[in-house]
């Protein structure tokens, strides 16, 4: 314990761990935001969120290294692909089951989709990990000390921009308000002439894009491979910590999870994950609705 505190009090290490934690927190936040948007829009927890992140990494890798598109062309092409994946995902995984009498059917469907996405990625891109070059090469230094790879800093910046854009969409834009209206009361929205199929599709496109951009950002550091999906557990932890139903909560919760994960490695690497989920248990004990969430009982 004392040794961990000693490590954390070293400014350079503290800075490194903080930047790492915030960068990872941003990745979890992108996934967590998607989870919340889907919960709010259609009431479904998406267990394929991690696989969507993984697919985003594979798609951007494919466009960059197989199609050989330069970055300015690759980005719009990737966005189109993400949108297409979002729509396909919705029509295959959610739409046929939306009126099913068993509400868990759609949740189980997302679990099946996760497995299918993994296998499709393996069949398409092979089983070996793929290497993606960082968007910004190099390492931030203070004097002789290497602080962090620029890719981590870029991840933080891109994550923050995407979060800001999603907030702008829902808070300032008419389209966002339509989506919110459809999510809050689908029946009333349809009576008002809002095409809920389009708002649901738009939600899926946003969800897939957020997760996929996360995959694109971490691919240079974590390699492009089918195990990237395992990151979604931390996003779930972020959602619960921040509070179900709250986008702000999911973001803050994810950043907390990222930082706890990073700082806890100063104390223990063996039980690092246990510390993360211990935080989750503590939050559930003392504030079961999460930091920004409403009481689950109230929602029910």
């Amino acid at each position: 314990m004392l040794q961990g505190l000693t490590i954390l009090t070293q400014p350079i290490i503290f800075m490194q761990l903080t930047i790492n934690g915030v960068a990872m927190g941003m990745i979890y936040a992108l996934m967590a935001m998607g989870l919340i948007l889907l919960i709010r829009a259609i009431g479904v927890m998406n267990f394929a969120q991690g696989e969507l992140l993984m697919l985003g990494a594979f798609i951007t890798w494919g466009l960059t290294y197989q199609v050989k598109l330069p970055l300015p062309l690759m980005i719009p092409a990737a966005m189109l692909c993400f949108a297409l994946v979002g729509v396909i995902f919705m029509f295959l995984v959610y739409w046929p089951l939306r009126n099913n009498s068993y509400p868990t059917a759609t949740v189980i469907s997302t679990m099946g989709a996760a497995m299918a996405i993994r296998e499709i990625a393996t069949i398409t891109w092979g089983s070996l990990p793929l290497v993606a070059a960082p968007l910004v090469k190099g390492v931030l230094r203070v004097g002789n000390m290497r602080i962090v790879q620029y890719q981590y800093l870029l991840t933080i910046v891109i994550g923050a921009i995407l979060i800001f854009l999603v907030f702008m969409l829902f808070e300032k834009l008419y389209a966002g308000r339509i989506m919110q209206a459809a999510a809050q009361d689908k029946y009333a929205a349809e009576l008002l002439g809002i095409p809920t199929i389009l708002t649901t599709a738009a939600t899926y496109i946003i969800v897939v894009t957020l997760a996929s951009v996360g995959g694109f950002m971490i691919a240079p550091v974590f390699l492009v491979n089918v195990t990237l999906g395992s990151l979604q557990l931390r996003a779930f932890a972020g959602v619960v910590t921040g509070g179900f139903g709250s986008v702000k909560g999911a973001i803050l919760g994810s950043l907390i999870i990222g930082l706890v994960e990073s700082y806890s490695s100063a104390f223990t690497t063996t039980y690092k994950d246990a510390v993360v989920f211990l935080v989750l248990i503590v939050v559930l004990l003392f504030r079961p609705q999460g930091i920004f969430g409403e009481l689950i009982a109230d929602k029910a």
Partner: protein
Amino acid sequence: MKGTRIRLCLAVLVAVLALPLCSFAFDGTVTFGAVAPLSGTNIMVGDFVKNGILLAQKHINERGGILGKELKIVFEDEVDNLQASVNAMTKVMNYPDVVAFFGSTYSAYCIAASPIVLQNKITMFAGGSSANIPKEKNPYVWQVRMTDDQSGLLMAKAATQIIGMKNPAILYIQESFGTGLMTQTVAALKNLGVEVKEQNLYAHNPDEKQFSPILTQIMNSDVDGLIGIDHQMPAAIISMQATAAGIDLPLLGSSSFASVVARETAKEAADGWMGVADWTPDVTTPAGKAFAESYREEYKGKPDSDMPAVTAYDSLILFAEACKIANTTTDKEAINNALQKIKAFPGAMSTYSYADNHCFSTSQFLTVNENSRAVLKDVVYTREP
């Protein structure tokens, strides 16, 4: 007359074309089972196992099969979890024609299947290297790879006697293989006079990808070297993140750090790692070179041979040898007993000899990664072949 000549020519042509197809008139078949992760997150390992098994099958059948019988293979998919793996192994054991099989590459799965193997009295070549596999004392379970206790000793010797580490940090994967090999390495280091401090042992979860916080601490500690114990993909990520972090320490890794996956993925970031490896395509023994070259030839355009491939290959070659010694391809008990008579058998990965703990391997390779190649520096023996 002209028609007869044409017919004769055609008959000769057909006979010549058909010659390769019936160069061996096999007298029946012998079936070997193989379990590998053919889908799921470990499919990369499964591909290597499948390639190794199919190459061995090809070589054995080209040489006339086993006691004149054609070798057939049945594969089962163990996916990426314990339950699926045990189910796959149980299924293979219960195929009526299967007389022996290659079990999981993962030690924990092999140990879980061990009681079923004993019940079915069928030879299993375990792909795992855990020292806990021999502790099961299962007469039907055999290991081709060096067990972790022996590897730990070799790693400790390399760390202290070759690199000169006196205060190393150990970064290891927290599962059966990693914890086992770490424990054995720490014990061996202690016997060699190097005490590894508790705070210098860094475990990570099997699905970990973010090693920067750990590497940061290692860099800022007083250690004089880093020992990595891991599987192929984490080994690649660690190599890359260690380079990015600017780690300037002597580096020693378990077999995976010399693997083709780690080297070809991490490229120049993998350079500089010394490895105590089960396999390197840089091998110099005749059997090893023959395997490495024929693998390259057979799987052109695919990654070079790696440990799971050569382990599976050698398991099948040892099985064929045991059949020859026992002079049977059907008597499972006799084939299992014949494995005890294996002595100084030249395999691709090692020279194999029977040992009481059912581990055949007698050596490992000491390698250094240079220009993305695992350059062979020495072959180190743990016992007389």
